[in-house]
């Protein structure tokens, strides 16, 4: 093959290749860049050949990883060149150098469009390819119709049409509104009849995207898809060039099966039967062959078929066949198949009734944990984690522990966390759980996060049977030669708290315990030192009658650290020294920790947060769904666990310390709650960072609640009640406003019991009932006159709005806050705008992570006056429960109004100038909400209509003026007079005058709506804002949509 045909380019590439080192290469590249820069400066002297050459050089340099921050304009300009050779370079290099958000791309939209609609097929191809690869939102809006035309054109050749299909796919991804379902779904059905497999493959890719967004809209495509699949699997009229290693286009097969996975179960018995025949043939007829590519291709089809079978919820028999098949796969030598076997088995866990058949392969799965390939080890870990239950927990956890010592660093933390969670969840007995965690710390201390040992402390504190056992265990571990600092922490804590229970055993006298613990003291960090000081003072307190020797030792330590460089350690030393002289009252203050309130495991939360990385159907998420209290952490019904503690004299002792200890001994905002340090640490870790879970102040706070309250501000970042939604982006002013808004509205909402506690809800067994917390209609009404607030809220999500209006333009920020512990997936937001408005919503991410908030700006332009409002079509899936909502957005007419002060002569002159219909309209309105006059004036003010008091001689009338802004009409002055009858406040006569008939009518109707008490259905689940009386007059899509709500 001849070289590029551009000598200059080849020479440059050779030069770069011949560079001995990076430094030389940089010099050579810099020289070239300087050269190109000077040449481009003086563009007129450049021949087309040179331009091409330099642009290619730029791409090459860029590919080597150097910044190329100039020459983009020259590259883009080549697109407009008349000749193919230059155009081609322009198109290709542009789509490599620039990403879709680059401003320069906008400059060529017109040129690109001309190429697309032009007659030159080669230019069409270039343009479609470029748009398909880097086209952004603007391209979507200006090019989609033209691209659609090419796709369905009967004169275009397949070459162009397949490019058009994929180009349209990109445009659709950037803005789903550009493909209108009505009409288009019929087109898609026709396109599925396509004979050319290349075009059909591209069309199928497009269909995957369309169906993923809107399965209902494309039901009519199902039969054709099944037919295509049948045809492919039977190799019926598939041209030779479209078979890949003897398999009829495996890609088309995979895509077709992907499409079918987006539809809910297929009901039609005939179609279902033929589909299952096909699937059965694929599942049973795929053999392992020698040729790698053939094997890969056939298994690509096979795994897609498996996914489809799972989706279709086949009969039990077929499912067990699938598990058996996967069982064979996880044992083969081929690593790809092994990997996919494990991955799909994890997905299979979601299918009911197959867990037992999966368990049969446990040994094989465990052996995959030792696979040389980390990708496979990860899959195996995830699967083991997902399939673990009471019956196999001991085996699996012990395997994980064993693996921990040899596991690579990248996976250890996850491994430790998962082992800890499983041990907690499925422990056959509690002492086993403690053993596991201590082993975990011993084997992988560096990878055991604080959460893990906080959790074990919680357990031990809440289970009296466990206290002596764990103290003794901790004591044993401290004897080992090398002790990890985390072990020192947990052992120090446990021994301080419970070693008195061991006092009679040999080697466990308080003094001996002190000596063995203090032995570690010099080598640990200051935070552990502080913790140990607390342990010492507890040891001291427990040795009753006081043991002079111990007292001397401990006080010696306190004395020594009175002047320690770390403030925390120093403070504790000073305080404990003072406390230890208080005799009996010391015992009250230092009494044992009360039980912890039951909480969601911070570990699970953490596992879920760190998860982000694995497959969507990862086992962690599965776990989270199944999370039911294991009742291991016993939340004691007794109001005060202290009664069981012999040394505590007053049953209210723990409360005392929290109440009095804190203010006294906390001169500065403490990182830990002072004085109660050892307890503070575990509590902080244990409190899940989820605001909703923070216990609200109970009427009669039990000690535990009190503690929870104290700790809550440490554990969470947002003030409780704000809802987690506002927290993550609280730095932006917009969300700060939302944060302020949220609590009152949440408070006003007639909260059902679970409403405040999204966490509890998310963890419930059955599918959560997603009902709005409050009235959608009320929210809408309140937002009609406010600029920010809640649009919608249910236990899973809160949608807030903040708006800003300038003349006919408005910008609305939609805040979607996931209140849930699981991510919201398949999030979709589409805004249907009525004809009077132009609305553009930026894309909303498909997934909203747990407790995160995303915001999407929505630009609104008012074209002309109308009372129709856009409708937000919003849907999401949380823990497999799909929710979809249609919400009216408060883009009401008054948003485009501005109160306008008008002088009396001015008003009268304008009023007279507009003589009668259609610009001046009058109507007597009955059934008006009876309002005192000042309140009616306030209503107008809140609607941005400026009341002019005293302008009308009759005190029972209100005269007001506002300017209405729209794109077609510009600024329109609206005048209004409302005549009220003091005898009958339920009727008024309104007169409206504006220079524009439509505006007059709409304005009158709008004011009428506001004055009439609009009937709303009482307590509506889901609350439909009953159409206002005036809605009969509505036309257009908004009316249809409004009817749907």
């Amino acid at each position, binding site marked *: *093959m001849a070289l590029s045909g551009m000598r200059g380019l080849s020479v440059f590439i050779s030069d770069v290749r011949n560079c001995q080192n990076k430094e030389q290469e940089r010099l050579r590249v810099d020289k070239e860049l300087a050269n190109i820069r000077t040449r481009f400066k003086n563009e007129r002297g450049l021949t087309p050949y040179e331009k091409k050459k330099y642009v290619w050089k730029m791409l090459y340099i860029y590919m080597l990883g150097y910044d190329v921050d100039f020459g983009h304009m020259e590259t883009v300009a080549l697109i407009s060149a008349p*000749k*193919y050779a230059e155009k081609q370079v322009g198109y290709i290099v542009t789509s490599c150098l620039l990403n879709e958000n680059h401003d320069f791309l906008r400059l060529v939209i017109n040129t690109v469009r001309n190429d697309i609609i032009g007659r030159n097929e*080669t230019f069409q191809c270039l343009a479609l390819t470029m748009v398909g690869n880097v086209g952004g939102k603007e391209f979507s809006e200006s090019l989609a119709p033209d691209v659609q035309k090419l796709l369905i054109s009967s004169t275009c050749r397949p070459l162009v049409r397949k490019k058009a299909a994929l180009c349209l796919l990109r445009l659709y991804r950037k803005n789903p509104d550009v493909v209108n379902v009505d009409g288009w779904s019929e087109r898609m059905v026709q396109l599925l009849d396509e004979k050319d497999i290349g075009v059909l493959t591209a069309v199928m*890719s497009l269909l995957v995207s369309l169906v993923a967004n809107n399965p209902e809209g494309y039901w009519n495509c199902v039969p054709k898809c099944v037919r295509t699949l049948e045809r492919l699997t039977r190799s019926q009229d598939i041209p030779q060039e479209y078979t890949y290693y003897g398999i009829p286009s*495996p*890609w088309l097969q995979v895509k077709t099966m992907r499409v079918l996975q987006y539809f809910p179960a297929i009901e039609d018995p005939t179609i279902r039967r033929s589909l299952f025949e096909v699937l059965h043939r694929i599942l049973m007829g795929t053999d392992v062959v020698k040729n790698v590519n053939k094997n890969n291709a056939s298994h690509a089809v096979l795994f897609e078929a498996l996914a489809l079978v799972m989706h279709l919820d086949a009969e039990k028999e077929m499912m067990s066949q699938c598990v058996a098949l996967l069982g064979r796969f996880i044992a083969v030598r081929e690593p790809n198949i092994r990997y996919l076997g494990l991955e799909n088995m994890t997905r299979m866990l979601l299918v009911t009734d197959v867990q037992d058949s999966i368990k049969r392969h446990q040994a094989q799965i465990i052996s995959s944990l030792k696979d040389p390939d980390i990708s496979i080890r990860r899959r195996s870990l995830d699967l083991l984690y997902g399939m673990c239950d009471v019956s196999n927990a001991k085996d699996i956890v012990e395997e994980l522990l064993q693996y921990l010592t040899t596991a690579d660093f990248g996976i250890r933390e996850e491994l430790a966390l998962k082992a800890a969670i499983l041990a907690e969840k499925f422990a056959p007995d509690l002492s086993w759980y403690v053993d596991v965690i201590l082993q975990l710390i011993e084997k992988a201390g560096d990878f055991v996060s604080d959460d893990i040992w906080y959790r074990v402390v919680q357990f031990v504190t809440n289970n009296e049977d466990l206290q002596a056992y764990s103290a003794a265990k901790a004591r044993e571990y401290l004897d080992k030669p090398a002790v990890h600092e985390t072990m020192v922490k947990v052992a120090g804590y446990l021994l301080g708290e419970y070693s008195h229970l061991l006092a009679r055993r040999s080697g466990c006298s308080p003094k001996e315990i002190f000596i063995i613990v203090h032995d570690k003291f010099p080598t640990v960090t200051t935070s552990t030192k502080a913790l140990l000081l607390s342990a010492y003072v507890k040891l001291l307190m427990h040795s009753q009658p006081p043991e002079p020797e111990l007292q001397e030792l401990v006080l010696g330590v306190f004395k020594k650290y009175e002047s320690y460089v770390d403030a925390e350690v120093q403070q504790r030393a000073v305080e404990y020294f003072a406390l230890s002289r208080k005799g009996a009252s010391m015992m009250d203050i230092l009494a044992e920790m009360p039980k912890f309130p039951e909480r969601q495991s911070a570990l699970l939360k953490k596992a879920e947060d760190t998860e982000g990385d694995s497959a*969507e159907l990862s086992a962690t998420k599965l776990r989270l769904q199944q999370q039911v209290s294991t009742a291991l952490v016993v939340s004691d019904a007794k109001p005060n666990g202290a009664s069981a503690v012999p040394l505590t004299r007053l049953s209210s002792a723990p409360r005392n310390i929290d109440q009095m200890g804190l203010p006294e001994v906390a001169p500065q905002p403490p990182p830990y709650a002072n004085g109660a340090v050892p307890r503070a640490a575990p509590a902080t870790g244990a409190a899940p960072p989820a605001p909703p879970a923070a216990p609200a102040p109970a009427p009669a706070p039990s000690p535990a609640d009190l503690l929870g309250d104290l700790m809550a501000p440490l554990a969470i970042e947002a003030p409780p009640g704000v809802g987690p939604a506002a927290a993550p982006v609280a730095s932006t002013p917009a969300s700060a406003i939302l944060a302020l808004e949220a609590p009152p509205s949440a408070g006003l909402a007639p909260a059902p019991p679970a409403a405040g506690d999204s966490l509890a809800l998310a963890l419930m067994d059955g599918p959560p009932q997603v009902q709005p917390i409050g009235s959608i209609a009320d929210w809408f009404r309140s937002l009609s006159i406010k600029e920010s607030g809640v649009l919608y809220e249910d236990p899973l999500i809160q949608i807030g709005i903040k708006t800003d209006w300038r003349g006919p333009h408005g910008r609305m920020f939609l805040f979607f806050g996931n209140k849930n512990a699981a991510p919201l997936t398949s999030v979709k937001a589409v805004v249907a705008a009525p004809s009077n408005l132009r609305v553009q919503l930026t894309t909303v991410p498909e997934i909203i992570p747990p407790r995160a908030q995303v915001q999407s700006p929505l630009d609104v332009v008012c074209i002309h006056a109308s009372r129709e409002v856009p409708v937000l079509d919003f849907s999401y899936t949380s823990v497999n429960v799909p929710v979809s909502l249609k919400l009216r957005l408060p883009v009401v007419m008054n948003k485009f109004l501005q109160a306008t002060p008008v002088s009396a002569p001015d008003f009268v002159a304008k009023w007279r100038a507009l003589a009668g219909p259609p610009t001046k309209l009058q109507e007597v309105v009955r059934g008006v909400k009876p309002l005192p006059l000042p309140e009616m004036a306030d209503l107008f003010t809140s609607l941005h209509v400026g009341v002019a008091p005293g302008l009308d001689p009759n005190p029972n009338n209100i005269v007001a003026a506002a300017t209405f802004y729209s794109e077609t009409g510009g600024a329109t002055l609206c005048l209004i007079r409302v005549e009220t009858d003091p005898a009958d406040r339920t009727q008024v006569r309104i007169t409206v005058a504006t220079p524009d008939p439509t505006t007059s009518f709409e304005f009158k109707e709008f004011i009428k709506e506001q004055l009439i008490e609009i009937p709303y259905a009482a307590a509506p689940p889901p609350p439909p804002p009953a159409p206002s009386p005036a809605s009969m007059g509505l036309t257009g899509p908004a009316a249809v949509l409004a009817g749907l709500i």
Partner: protein
Amino acid sequence: MTIHFVLLISRQGKVRLTKWYSPYTQKERTKVIRELSGVILSRGPKLCNFVEWRGLKVIYKRYASLYFCMCIDADDNELETLEIIHHFVEILDRYFGNVCELDLIFNFHKAYYILDEVLIAGELQESSKKSVARVIAAQDTLIENAKEQAGSLSNMIAQATK
């Protein structure tokens, strides 16, 4: 269900081709390349062709001194993507005649042309090698002839691709 990007990296970590179908800024692109070269080049032989990375999956395959990598979503079909890679390699092979890294270095622009005929918008555009070869041949003729004169371009490509 899409390919987010395509990378060709040599065993020495040199980039031979990059194509981004999802929007990544310049900074992100550099970071992705650095991160992934580290992960992929260090993987031994006989391991699977999939790497889990930042919640996505990178499907890669080594051909002589070159690693071909494609990044997909976690729930996409891995083997399908792996065979897209092979399909692309076969097309390159057919075009260059026993393709080697050097071909792709000196004719990197050709590699881009060819990729554009295989993938658009991160989706497989054409699964027939013959069909791709015809289009590329037509393009080459166009470029060759362009030097002499523009003439009736569209006729020519129409003929060449018939």
